[in-house]
């Protein structure tokens, strides 16, 4: 008995067992990717103007830190503003569309059609209306990211169990009651789930717009670096975008978890 307790009490486990490999995995895989990339460049001896090694890219990040930092903030700014508008508008339009079967049926095809338009094609129009700069970038981020929010909110509203609705209607509930008590809380997991998709799309929108119609932002920085054959700087910009994207995604996932934890534990998880 005493031998047993002694055994379990002493943390004499080997190091490999004490490490939480699942938590560590994302970092290990990322490092692995960079190592592989580095090796590939060394083996194939690709010139830095085609594919720079990661070490060369990090060097570029350090060397151009000031413009990279400034442009990263600019892109983060246009993206989050566009995304914020998309959240507000997406929520409002989603609630509107999900309100009644008739509105849903009428507007849904229009929304699909609108979503099928490549948003890049809209940038020139936005430039004609608003000139080059931050506004087209914000609007492109908004246009590209609000669709998934609308669809998810509307779906959450439109898929209320008919039995739940019957129970409430039999008590004399009005449409507004059903929406407030069931529809809106029910669509919240769909809404928060869609934010993760929407934020990554927002980055796509803002960067595309900055690339063709702005003097600021990572998109603009990368396109001018490209015209000067400064390929390591282009990759540095891509890396910064990836970092921003991951950070915002993680933030949205965290918000989702905080706001709608019940949906992950109940059977209603998507």
């Amino acid at each position, binding site marked *: 008995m005493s031998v047993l307790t002694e055994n379990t009490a002493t943390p004499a486990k080997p190091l490999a067992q004490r490490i939480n490999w699942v938590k560590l995995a994302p970092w290990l895989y990322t490092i692995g990717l960079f190592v592989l990339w580095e090796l590939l460049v060394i083996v194939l001896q690709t010139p830095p103007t085609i594919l720079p090694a990661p070490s060369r890219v990090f060097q570029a990040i350090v060397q151009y830190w000031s413009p990279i930092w400034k442009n990263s903030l600019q892109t983060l700014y246009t993206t989050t503003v566009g995304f914020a508008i998309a959240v507000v508008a997406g929520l409002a339009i989603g609630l509107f569309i999900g309100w009644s079967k008739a509105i849903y049926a009428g507007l849904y095809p229009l929304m699909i059609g609108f979503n099928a338009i490549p948003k890049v094609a809209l940038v020139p129009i936005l430039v004609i209306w608003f000139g080059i700069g931050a506004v087209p970038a914000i609007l492109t981020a908004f246009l590209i990211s609000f669709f998934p929010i609308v669809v998810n909110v509307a779906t959450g509203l439109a898929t209320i169990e008919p039995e739940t609705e019957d129970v409430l209607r039999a*008590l*004399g509930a009005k449409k507004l009651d059903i929406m407030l008590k069931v529809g809106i809380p029910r669509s919240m997991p769909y809404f928060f789930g869609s934010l993760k998709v929407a934020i990554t799309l927002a980055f796509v929108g803002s960067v595309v717009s900055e690339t063709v119609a702005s003097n600021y932002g990572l998109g603009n920085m990368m396109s001018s670096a490209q015209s000067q054959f400064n390929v390591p700087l282009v990759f540095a910009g891509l890396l910064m975008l990836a970092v921003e994207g991951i950070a915002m995604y993680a933030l949205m996932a965290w918000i989702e978890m905080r706001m709608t934890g019940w949906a992950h534990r109940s059977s209603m998880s998507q």
Partner: protein
Amino acid sequence: MPHLVTIDNVDMRYGGAAGTLAVSGLTMKVGKGEFAAVVGPSGCGKSTLMKLVTGLHIPQSGVVVVAEKQVTKPVSIVGMAFQNPTMLPWRTTLDNILLPLEIVERHRHRLRANKKEYVEKAEHLLETVGLKGFGSKFPWQLSGGMQQRANLCRALIHEPELLMLDEPFGALDAFTREELWCVIRDLHAAQGVTIILVTHDLREATFLADRIFVMSARPGKVLKEHTVPFARPRDLEVMYEKAFNDMVHELHGEIASARVVA
């Protein structure tokens, strides 16, 4: 005995003129305080009957009268419980049970000021169905049987005059079902509420009801009406008596032939 529910020669068709005729020539009367059970083949229009009585559907012809008023819109004196408990997963069990009070006109304006009184009532109901202390749990932390008990509490919280139960015990195991039969039996005895129960379980119908309506295959109408002779209060033991089994047997035969006719 005055009638709380009167259904007179009702036709109900789903989906326009060419749609499914669910019930046709349906006539039945349920007295105040009575416990009625409705049995019949699957798809014969039993759930439709529930929706007609509660005013969720309005018949194309014939009239439904509940509490001396013709039903033209949802009547709020009913409580409903379905086979699927439909608890809202973001609300605690207690808040789920209080939900009808936020809807029903008579209560919604009093709820905030008299919250304590209502919560006490809900907790009392929870105790009656054997869920004491589970009010703060979320529905997904309860088993299927426990959710169904909570569902009953939700149907009863606003003290409905009429309780409509559509196969509420269908998904439960035999022992839990019998336990809940006793809960319903005691509620009915204590509160004098009128109950209409739709069920596929003929023993359930015979054990609980005063009267049993047997429906034909679709389009449904009442084929036969039985008065259950067993004295109240009934004990679960009554189910092992010969007269009880004979009655179940007879009902079984009637539904079997109603299915064949279809």
